[in-house]
């Protein structure tokens, strides 16, 4: 039997030991909380918290009418994370929503337990909601920013693209990155073990938006340019192509297209070459498209006149000190200045170049913007090359006069033709109108800027007249004729340089022109690089693109198609020449109209109001059946088909073309 006292004293001893232990614990607690407290707190924060850069909402890029070309959208990303538990049924539910193969989804879900992984990036809001509604624990939706280009490939080379970290990498995205990106905010974010911010610490900086960039581009013209260029590049199986459309009075780029192109939404899917903005980065030898500037220079300097005649040496012209002759495609004898342009004589251009002399030739070319950057707001612009005249051999005075031995960009060419179209005054080319902040107030504007007068208004007018003949009958670019609107322009066909000489197989066809001839609205430069096949002349390869683009955009631009009455010497427009006319009575109005009959070919009447269509058919007696109101959208027989003087014609009209 143990004694009570013994037990009590033992108990006291044990209790005392406990008290001692408790005191030790309390001592340790005081040490940790009071002495080490701040240090522990700091150490913990260092581990849990980090500075997080909250990127601002990247601002949009819009065209001149506000059409959104680039924007930022909330992208929902789907993840698998804790406490996900694998189930074979999940893949069947998720795969159709994610647009992925079921076995692929299943594999990803099965592997790695419930460790964090992304199942998909950038699903839309509807899909995200559908996935949320599945309520699979551990399948989460995370929202982040994603750059989106709603127009796809449209103006891809102008817009460029931004990388994953919201940094502009190409085009306007790169050049205006500082403004578009906005001010990012650094927030100290504390997270849980999985890296998710605590709710109490997350700060919404969504109101912080980058600036909006307003381009001078017109999305409608841009899509026309892209469609027609793509069509032709495919048709002639060319390596590449480019189109620039410029408003000559303002210097604004209305459209800028490159083929091959890329979708900035899927940059990684495109080869590097497809992302090059050839309009500003690629140099080419312009060839005949340079002749107008030589002639304009000579006219402006008062050295020649429009009527002056030049002897074109019947196709062979030896320049002193050079063993090879300058050749023309066809031998020509005497041509006036207009004729030199119209038939694009190398020999006479060279002679005019010699009259102008090296110094003045260089100065004019330079004044037209060659051998200097246009300073357009595009990254990677090259300035091209025209050797300074002191270094010219005499032969270069002649070759440069027909565009050989120099290199230019399509942008330079567009600006130079715009100078002629704008009465000799060069406008600073620009592609950005202004930059506005999120509230719409202007941060930076790019006002119209007159760079300089290059040639007199009179010379510019003469040049437009002469260039119009190129597009007319007997010109090198008859295929650039636009239905209903007089146009002007110049072709160029350059052999590409290779191995120190010129290639006989690789060509660069170009056409530069504008319409209408008087008071031009748009300058268009077309480049087709390495067309395959027999046809490579600029007039046959590049000119049709100009025509197609122009015709597609006339109505949009509100350019009225004029319908000059047939003139004796003119078949520049679609009307056949006058001939025997027969009086007919139309079924609808009973009014007598005239129709051409001599040519016996049906003109293209599409797009014309009834009155003009009737006029175009001439005053022959013919049955004309009219159906509908408004403009002609189709007719029988079709354009170009034989038209018997007595045959009836039916016209179909509609309010909208």
């Amino acid at each position, binding site marked *: 039997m143990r004694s009570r006292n013994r*037990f*009590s004293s033992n108990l006291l001893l044990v209790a005392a030991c406990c008290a001692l232990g408790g005191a030790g614990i309390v001592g340790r607690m005081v040490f940790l909380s009071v002495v080490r407290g701040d240090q522990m707190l700091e150490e913990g924060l260092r581990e849990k918290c980090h500075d997080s850069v909250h990127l601002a909402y990247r601002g949009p890029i819009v065209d001149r009418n506000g059409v959104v070309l680039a924007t930022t959208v909330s992208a929902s990303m789907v993840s698998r994370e804790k406490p996900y538990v694998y189930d074979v049924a999940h893949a069947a539910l998720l795969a159709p929503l994610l647009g992925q193969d079921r076995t692929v989804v299943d594999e990803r879900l099965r592997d790695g337990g419930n460790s964090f992984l992304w199942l998909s990036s950038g699903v839309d809001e509807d899909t995200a909601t559908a996935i949320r509604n599945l309520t699979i624990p551990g399948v989460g939706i995370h929202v982040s920013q994603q750059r989106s280009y709603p127009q796809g490939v449209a103006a891809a080379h102008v817009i460029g693209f931004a990388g994953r970290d919201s940094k502009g990498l190409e085009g306007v995205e790169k050049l205006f990155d500082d403004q578009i990106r906005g001010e990012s905010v650094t927030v100290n974010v504390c997270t849980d073990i999985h890296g998710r911010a605590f709710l109490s610490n997350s700060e919404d900086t969504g109101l912080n938006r980058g600036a909006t960039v307003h381009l001078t581009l017109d999305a409608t013209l841009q899509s026309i340019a892209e469609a027609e260029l793509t069509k032709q590049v495919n048709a002639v199986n060319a390596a590449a192509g480019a189109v620039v459309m410029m408003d000559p009075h303002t210097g604004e780029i209305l459209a800028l297209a490159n083929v091959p192109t890329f979708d900035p939404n899927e940059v990684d899917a495109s080869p590097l070459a497809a992302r090059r903005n050839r309009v500003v980065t690629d140099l080419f030898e312009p060839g005949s498209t340079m002749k107008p500037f030589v002639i304009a220079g000579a006219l402006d300097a008062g050295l020649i006149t429009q009527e002056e005649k030049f002897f074109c040496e019947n196709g062979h012209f030896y320049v002193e000190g050079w063993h090879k002759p300058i050749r023309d495609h066809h031998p020509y004898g005497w041509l006036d200045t207009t004729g030199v342009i119209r038939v694009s004589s190398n020999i006479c251009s060279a002679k005019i170049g010699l009259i102008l002399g090296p110094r003045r030739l260089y100065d004019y070319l330079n004044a037209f913007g060659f051998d200097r950057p246009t300073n357009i707001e595009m990254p990677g612009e090259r300035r091209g090359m025209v050797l300074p005249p002191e270094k010219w051999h005499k032969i270069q005075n002649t070759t440069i006069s027909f565009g050989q031995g120099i290199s230019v960009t399509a942008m330079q060419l567009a600006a130079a033709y715009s100078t002629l179209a704008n009465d000799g005054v060069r406008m600073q080319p620009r592609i950005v109108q202004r930059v506005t902040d999120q509230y719409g107030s202007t941060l930076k504007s790019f006002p119209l800027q007159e760079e300089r007068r290059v040639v007199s208004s009179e010379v510019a007018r003469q040049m437009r007249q002469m260039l119009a003949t190129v597009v007319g009958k007997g010109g090198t670019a008859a295929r650039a004729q636009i239905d209903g609107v007089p146009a002007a322009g110049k072709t160029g066909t350059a052999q590409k340089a290779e191995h120190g000489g010129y290639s006989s197989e690789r060509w660069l066809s170009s056409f530069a022109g504008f319409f209408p001839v008087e008071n031009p609205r748009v300058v268009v430069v077309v480049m087709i690089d390495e067309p395959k096949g027999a046809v490579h002349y600029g007039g046959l390869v590049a000119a049709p693109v100009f025509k197609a683009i122009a015709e597609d955009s006339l109505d949009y631009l509100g350019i009225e198609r004029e319908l000059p009455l047939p003139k004796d010497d003119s078949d520049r427009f679609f009307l056949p020449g006058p001939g025997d006319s027969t009086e007919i009575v139309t079924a609808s109005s009973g009014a007598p109209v005239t129709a051409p009959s001599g040519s016996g070919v049906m003109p293209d009447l599409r797009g014309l109001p009834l009155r003009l269509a009737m006029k175009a058919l001439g005053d022959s007696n013919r049955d004309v059946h009219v159906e509908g109101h408004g403009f002609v959208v189709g007719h029988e027989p079709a354009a170009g088909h034989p038209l018997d003087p007595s045959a009836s014609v039916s016209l179909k009209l509609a309010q909208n073309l």
Partner: protein
Amino acid sequence: MSRMAGSGVALSTTEWPRLRVRIAGNSDPWLFLFVALLATAGVAFVYSASYFISTSDFGDGYRMTVKHIVSGVIGMVLLYVCSRCPSDFLERKAYWIFGLTLPMLLLTIIPGVGECANGACRWVPLGFFNLQPAEFVKVGFIIATCAWLTRVSDRLRNPIYGMAPVFGMVGLLGLVLLSQPDFGTTALLGALSVLLLFLGGVPAWQLAGPTALLSVLAGFLVYLEPYRVKRLVVFLNPDADPQGVGWQLRQALIAFGSGKVFGQGIGASTQKSGWLPEAHTDFIFSVIGEEAGLLGASAIVVLFALLAWRGFRIAHRHSEPFAQLLAAGLTLLITLQAMVNMGVVLGLLPTKGIGLPFLSYGGSSMMAFLAASGILLSLSRELRER
């Protein structure tokens, strides 16, 4: 005045104000109050500390808290039942009670039956609930040991009756527990058995040798298991492996220290968001320190101290030797486990893996400790009703 006045024992000199509340008959309302306060604080902190892990494991932040409350309610029923068990009944049925807890413990080591987590198979799945038998075994072992030591109290100087059977039983339990493995509970049982033998009347000089032997054995077991060695190394030098084994301890110290004197505020712990593993179970005291500060953590320590005081007071005052020993044993179970847990959390002891009584998440532990408290209440009623 105390009956024991004049015995010269300090424990008896303090007379507590009498609470006019009847809990489980005439039992000690103070004891019940401290238990209830600790359990209530436990619910609050389990809610705070488990929300993150519960959300990430079950997709439901409240799930663990609800389970904890349910076990608390069941535990309270157990407490009431136990508070109605007279000490002589417990003494008579001591081996039966102990025996009842053992089969469950054996089930845990049968492959395919035992439920495992983090490499330890300590649970028996009951469908709605995973039972951790070791928690009940501890209480059963104390009851049986007290009964045995009371029965052989006159022969305790002979190791055949005292140390041998008790240490033998610890050894047997240890074999099962260590195969789970559960080193912490084994060590705790060893320590408790030494203390019970000492209180039961085995001379201290006799205990010294075997105790030293047990410690060496424990050291050997630590040596056998690489992870225990690592824990020890980390304990001795917390910076040894900051991303690995040292991680948990470092996070625990960061959590406790971050609370400073007044705490970050209830619910405002950041360490519980996955940074501190087992924040809601073994390391809940860190979260208490982080959220309630030194003051809040001290309040918990004070509650345990008061609870110990009431427990030892029962042991001191009870007339029956078995009841005396049992009161001391159960009080020591609570106190010792609390101290070891806090010692681990505060970096004073190597990491063990035992919870904080009444506060840590874990249904079995909650029920077992409330049952033990019920027995203490029953013993206290016998004091008052005499």
